[in-house]
């Protein structure tokens, strides 16, 4: 299945159930195919464009998802559940990294479009929480309640962080005259 296929929540739930009940690897493979692009894109933005690190984090995320898929209740969104694992994996990775390896120091080895480069430099003016919330909201298009679940934040806080982050980004672009 390609990423251009129409989203089918029932089909997705059936795939998740097959993995949960019998550890169906083929079904999990289809879930990986479906979500590898948004998850790697999200992690690439979170890691300031470090695609190699993003791929490692994405791989760790999918492996964690496979081993703990029985903890997924099936009531919420699988996509939000996956992004929650990804964000926690990213935070754990940040804690275990050396202080010299800061996010805004990553430049080499990344091929990005001009627009993505501008967006990346604009995102650098945000703190970690604002960057995460604006990416989930404006790029990955998760609902505010899903973002609250992913980031472990109250719903009202998510809304205010989204507004503040957009305001900061607009201010940055205005100052850079873009």
């Amino acid at each position, binding site marked *: 299945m390609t990423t251009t296929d129409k989203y089918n929540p029932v089909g997705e739930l059936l795939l998740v159930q097959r993995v949960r009940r*019998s*550890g169906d690897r083929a079904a*999990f493979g289809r879930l990986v195919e479906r979500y590898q692009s948004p998850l790697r*894109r999200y992690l690439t933005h979170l890691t300031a464009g470090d695609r190699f690190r993003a791929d490692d984090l994405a791989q760790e995320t*999918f492996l964690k998802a496979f081993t703990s898929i029985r903890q997924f209740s099936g009531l919420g969104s699988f996509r939000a559940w996956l992004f929650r694992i990804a964000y926690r994996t990213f935070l754990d990775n940040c804690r275990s990294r050396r202080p010299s390896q800061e996010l805004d120091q990553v430049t080499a080895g990344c091929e990005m479009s001009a*627009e*993505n480069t501008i*967006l990346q430099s604009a995102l650098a003016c945000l703190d970690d929480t604002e960057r995460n919330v604006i990416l989930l909201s404006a790029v990955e*298009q998760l609902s505010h309640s899903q973002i609250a679940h992913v980031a472990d934040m109250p719903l009202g806080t998510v809304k205010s962080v989204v507004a503040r982050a957009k305001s900061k980004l607009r201010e940055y*672009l205005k100052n850079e005259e873009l």
Partner: protein
Amino acid sequence: MKRNRIQNDPLEGLLAAARRERVPDDGFTQRIMGHIEPVPPSRNSYRIPTFATAFASVMLIVWMALSGFDPAGLTGRLERYGQRGTEIRLAPVSWQIPRTEKAVGNQAETNL
């Protein structure tokens, strides 16, 4: 108006471009699948004691039936019960005055 404002917003343009970006798989899925260990089909081991208890109960009933196990003469009592009349009685067959402690005591004295 609002659509024009959004279209002219550079931030919205950047975010829309980021949304359109697709990361090619390039063997990523294959790499993930190579790391995944096959999981046993069922880990529902909690069912084993349940089935064992049910099986033991059935076997006990079968053994009792085949061995003629008859606790407290249950078979005889059931047969006697079956021989009794099945008509509905509105009053007892014979009235009987309940024995009180005093009556029991007097009877004991009489016997002495």
